[in-house]
């Protein structure tokens, strides 16, 4: 791709531009997600992209700092770009929304930033998250609300076969305690379960751990876990997963929801129900969430909460891999106007999309331009006369791109 005369300016690693036709696809997904959030009575909010570092560390734990873009302002206040939205929302709710009637149903569609050492597809340094938080609601009804909303969200964008695996963070703790592990050994085992490293787990010489980390299924898997879960918390969690499967089944999601006991999400604030959604052919999850009852208390507001979020770019990748969304959607233009501000203003106030053309162009050139952009009407106002041309039969043809349209804007 030679670009004559272009000065070699480069983007930072792990971020990307969105050309108009690419952004149109992304916006469509964002609007579809917003529509789902709205139907479940969630209201969208916005928080700053920049947070104070201590706020993010309070929410996410200090070990997450290496995932952050962080820097100082000129007064040496440590700041960072938010890596996710749950902590900023928790900060906001625990300060300015403490008095609001609970439960709160809040949604966001927002860019977040992560310092991945090696950015790659599905792991970009800037990404867009579309998600919700249900704050001040404990129990399985709230958990179920997030799961079923997520299923509807992926249905809405056309991934009607997306699979959802569910788990509960209390179960793994019950297993580890039952296996007699605590302290560093328990932490290490939990990390290995999270990445399903069965080779590492075998070193603990507790076959039950390996079996547990492989265990995935439905009611049968829950029953088989009962034998090895010793703590009352983990047994209660198994009961709740059982009910969750029943509720999913009665909604017609029998083939879409399974239990996976090794499903543990990356962030350490999860305390209960967990889930992730994915489609088989994409190697990473598309959405996920869970209960994080310990997060708001870290901000001095003692209320339970549950939420989920989807990676908008990951949803786009999944759709593109299926050949959906591949068609370029054109910006609709109703009329091409040459020579008169007044005529153009009148067209706009009539609700039409107006493109301005040069006033010195010939009729042929105007028709050519109208055809190129699929504009049905041309209005020419020169020297006080207003003429309207009908655009000929080639209406709607776009010039054939010579290179893939995402290489360069044409």
């Amino acid at each position: 791709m030679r670009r004559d005369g272009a000065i070699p300016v480069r983007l930072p690693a792990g971020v990307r531009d969105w050309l108009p036709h690419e952004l149109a696809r992304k916006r469509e997904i964002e609007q579809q997600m917003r529509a789902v959030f709205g139907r479940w009575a969630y209201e969208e909010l916005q928080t700053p992209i920049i947070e104070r570092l201590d706020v993010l560390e309070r929410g996410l734990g200090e070990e997450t700092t290496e995932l952050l873009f962080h820097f100082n302002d000129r007064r040496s206040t440590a700041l960072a770009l938010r890596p996710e939205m749950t902590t900023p929302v928790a900060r906001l709710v625990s300060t300015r929304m403490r008095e609001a009637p609970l439960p709160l149903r809040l949604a966001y569609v927002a860019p977040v930033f992560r310092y991945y050492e090696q950015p790659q597809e599905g792991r970009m340094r800037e990404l867009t998250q579309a998600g919700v938080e249900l704050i001040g609601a404990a129990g399985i009804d709230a958990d179920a609300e997030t799961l079923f909303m997520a299923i509807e969200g992926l249905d809405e964008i056309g991934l009607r076969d997306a699979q959802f695996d569910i788990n509960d963070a209390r179960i793994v703790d019950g297993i580890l305690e039952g296996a007699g592990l605590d302290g560093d050994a328990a932490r290490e085992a939990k990390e290995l379960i999270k990445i399903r490293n069965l080779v590492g787990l075998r070193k603990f010489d507790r076959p039950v751990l390996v079996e547990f980390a492989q265990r995935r299924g439905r009611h049968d898997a829950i029953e088989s876990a009962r034998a090895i879960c010793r703590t009352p918390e983990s047994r209660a969690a198994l009961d709740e997963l059982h009910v969750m499967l029943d509720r999913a089944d009665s909604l017609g999601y029998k083939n879409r929801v399974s239990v996976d006991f090794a499903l543990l999400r990356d962030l350490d604030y999860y305390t209960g129900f967990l889930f992730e959604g994915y489609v088989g052919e994409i190697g990473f999850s598309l959405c996920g969430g869970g209960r994080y009852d310990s997060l708001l208390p870290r901000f001095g507001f003692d209320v339970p909460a549950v939420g989920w979020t989807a990676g908008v770019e990951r949803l786009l990748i999944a759709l593109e891999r299926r050949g959906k969304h591949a068609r370029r959607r054109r910006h609709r233009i109703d009329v091409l106007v040459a020579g008169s501000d007044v005529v153009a203003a009148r067209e706009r106030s009539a609700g039409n999309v107006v493109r301005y053309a040069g006033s010195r162009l010939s009729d042929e050139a105007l028709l050519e331009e109208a055809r190129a952009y699929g504009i049905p009407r041309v209005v020419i106002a020169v020297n006080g006369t207003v003429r309207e041309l009908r655009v000929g039969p080639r209406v709607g043809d776009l010039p054939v791109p010579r290179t893939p349209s995402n290489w360069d804007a044409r």
Partner: protein
Amino acid sequence: MSKPPEPQADGLTIAVPKGALFRDAAERLRAAGIDVPDDVGRKLTVRTPDGTTLLFLRPTDVPAYVEFGSADCGIVGKDVLWETDRNVAELADLGFGYCRLVVAGRRIDRYHEGAPLPTFLRVATKFTRSAESFFAERDLPVELIPLHGSVELSPLVGLADLIVDLVATGTTLREHDLVVVEEIAESTARFVVNPVRFRAKYDALTVLLDRLASVPA
């Protein structure tokens, strides 16, 4: 060039390493019921009669194919997993392909007997990630020199004081009068899967895992 076969919806796609691990990997897969040809020649991919798709890859490429889901699962040395740091789930140690990642130096330098290391230490290796973390954990400042082959030459001609390299039998070291200064880790072949695909093809992958793991190493 032959067109890669379309992966079948329920058949597995398995990344098979070419080179030193191939024979053992093929044998183990055959014992697990997958019909791997003896000689793949220059073939890149094969569809077996039972609907399994095999991809024949350079060992270092296996983790990327599995992480991105172009293969559901694969066989790869632990040494490659250290170096590539890809997000794959390690389900079984297959036992074969044993080797050690070691720090080695010239016998006459006596580093293996505790002779003091130079202040400005140069280390040549093909395993830059593993070498970097090994020396970083010991707070040793080193100049790493990434090489792509015949690393054992570098200390002999003064390019490096030490090397970090894989040792299977130790013959190569002995031939060049090099000795192991310290062992970093032991490596064997692993069965790895894509974490999401493990869920999506749970039944087929757990059956394969059980069969691969049940063969005595």
